[in-house]
């Protein structure tokens, strides 16, 4: 297809904003796209320091709110799904607002995959080997560099992702109520094994403009379109934005989902094997009887090392009664070399952590497991 005949989509950079404004723009643009008031759009955005929970998450269960408040970190709720994140000026957000018919499929996982593969290709242009990791991450050698999520409204979708240019891992550990060990050097080192950023990978921070250009080029190629930059939102969007901001910049929205902290305990388990000590920190969703998140550490040997983060990804949101089958299924299809360590040892470590829940008072109050 020649450039002249290519469909033109809009590209807009809404700059550095507080979280409430960025999320109000999500709502405004998705509605505007659904009502045909804007064309298909690629948006870039940045955040003043913010802790963002997913649409269905509870702030108290996911964030260390005292720390956020004391350090001027805004707390907000996304319109999209997924888990809590820390977002600040060192990251770039990218978002697509599309008519679903553009995608040629209505299968939501297929849509995620296609968009993430394009985003990964855009990150690769910068010189790092970024790959899509099902279901919603983009990683470099097992370390997450971009997390994504979406929302839909009628025939329109919003799909968004983060991209870490630089990243303050320690701050993330302090903001999120994740099953990390206490905030030791070890925990920070362990988090660094799971999260990547462009500065560390490239030795220097790429220019923001270069990052946006790379992503835009890959989306343009992937969809077979060209982007036409727009300086600002159109009139209809601005109207919708102001309306949405009144709702979103409000405690009723931020606390839309509220559940007791005791329903989301953080527990830890140890298991000694002949191959070494295995340790797991678990976040549990008690009402749904599910593992929210698992974090393995210890002095064992596995090759490749990224097997651990891939196992953690496989365990996310796993019902407790499917623990055995999930772990078995994972190892059946994952080639790994382990020294005196068996798949059953990972199950046992988790079961040891779960045993601390039975009958005992639940670990409470935002503390990291000890």
């Amino acid at each position, binding site marked *: 297809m020649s450039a002249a005949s290519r469909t033109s989509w809009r590209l807009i950079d809404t700059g550095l904003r507080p979280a409430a404004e960025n999320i109000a723009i999500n709502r405004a643009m998705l509605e505007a796209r659904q009502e045909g008031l804007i064309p298909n759009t690629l948006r870039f955005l940045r955040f003043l320091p913010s802790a963002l929970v*997913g*649409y*269905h998450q509870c702030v108290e269960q996911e964030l260390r709110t005292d720390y956020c408040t004391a350090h001027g970190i805004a707390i907000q709720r996304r*319109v*999209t*799904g*997924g888990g809590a994140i820390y977002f600040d000026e060192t990251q770039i957000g990218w978002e697509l607002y599309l008519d679903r*018919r553009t995608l*040629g*499929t*209505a*299968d*939501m*996982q297929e849509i*995620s995959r296609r968009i993430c593969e394009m985003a990964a290709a855009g990150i690769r242009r910068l010189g790092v080997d970024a790959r899509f990791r099902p*279901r*919603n991450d983009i990683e470099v050698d097992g370390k997450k560099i971009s997390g*994504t*999520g*979406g*929302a*839909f*409204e*009628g025939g329109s979708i919003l799909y968004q992702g983060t991209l870490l240019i630089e990243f303050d891992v320690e701050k993330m550990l302090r903001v999120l109520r994740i099953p990390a060990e206490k905030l030791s050097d070890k925990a920070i080192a362990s988090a660094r094994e799971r999260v990547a950023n462009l500065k560390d990978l490239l030795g220097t921070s790429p220019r923001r403009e270069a990052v946006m250009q790379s992503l835009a080029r890959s989306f343009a190629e992937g969809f077979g379109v060209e982007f036409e930059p727009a300086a600002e939102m159109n009139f209809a969007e601005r109207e919708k934005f102001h309306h949405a901001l009144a709702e979103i910049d409000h405690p009723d929205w931020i606390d*839309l*989902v509220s559940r007791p902290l005791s329903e989301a305990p953080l527990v830890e388990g140890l298991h000694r094997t002949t191959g070494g000590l295995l340790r797991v920190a678990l976040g549990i969703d008690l*009402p*749904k009887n599910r593992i929210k998140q698992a974090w393995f550490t210890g002095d064992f040997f596995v090759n490749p090392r990224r097997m651990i983060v891939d196992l953690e990804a496989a365990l996310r*949101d796993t019902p407790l009664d499917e623990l055995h089958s999930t772990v078995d299924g994972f190892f059946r299809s994952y080639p790994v070399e382990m020294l005196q360590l068996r798949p059953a040892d990972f199950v046992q470590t988790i079961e040891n952590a779960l045993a601390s829940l039975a009958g005992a008072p639940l670990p409470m109050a935002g503390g990291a497991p000890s």
Partner: protein
Amino acid sequence: MGAVRGCNLPEDLFYNVDNNVWAKREADGNVSVGLTSYACSLAGEIVSYTPKKIGKAVEKDKSCATVESGKWVGPVKTPVAGEVVAINDAVAGKPGTINKDPYTQGWVVKIKPANWDADAATLKSGADALAAFEAKMQADNFKGC
């Protein structure tokens, strides 16, 4: 039991095909609302469910609940207007129930309809519904449940 491309679509239910939802008038006059098996297949496993509160008035074709699957969040659009009179505790505890059993255990909300006859007249059932779903699946390039 009707089916299109392997997706169960009971012919006695009333469907809004565009919004991929069904309605069923119960013996007490209230209307159960849920997602179709086709919607579930497109979404993947549903992991979160937030219904509107009991007592809340909902407009036809507006959201009566929000669901999440694979990090996608979206509304369930009620095919009938009225007042929410029941939400599904079993689904709240195990949202995947919607996927496993979308037409019985996995109902999303029950609504006291404002005007069932008028709303039902805009919905499709039986062979009409099956034909409309076939057309939708064709447009969506859908391979099958």
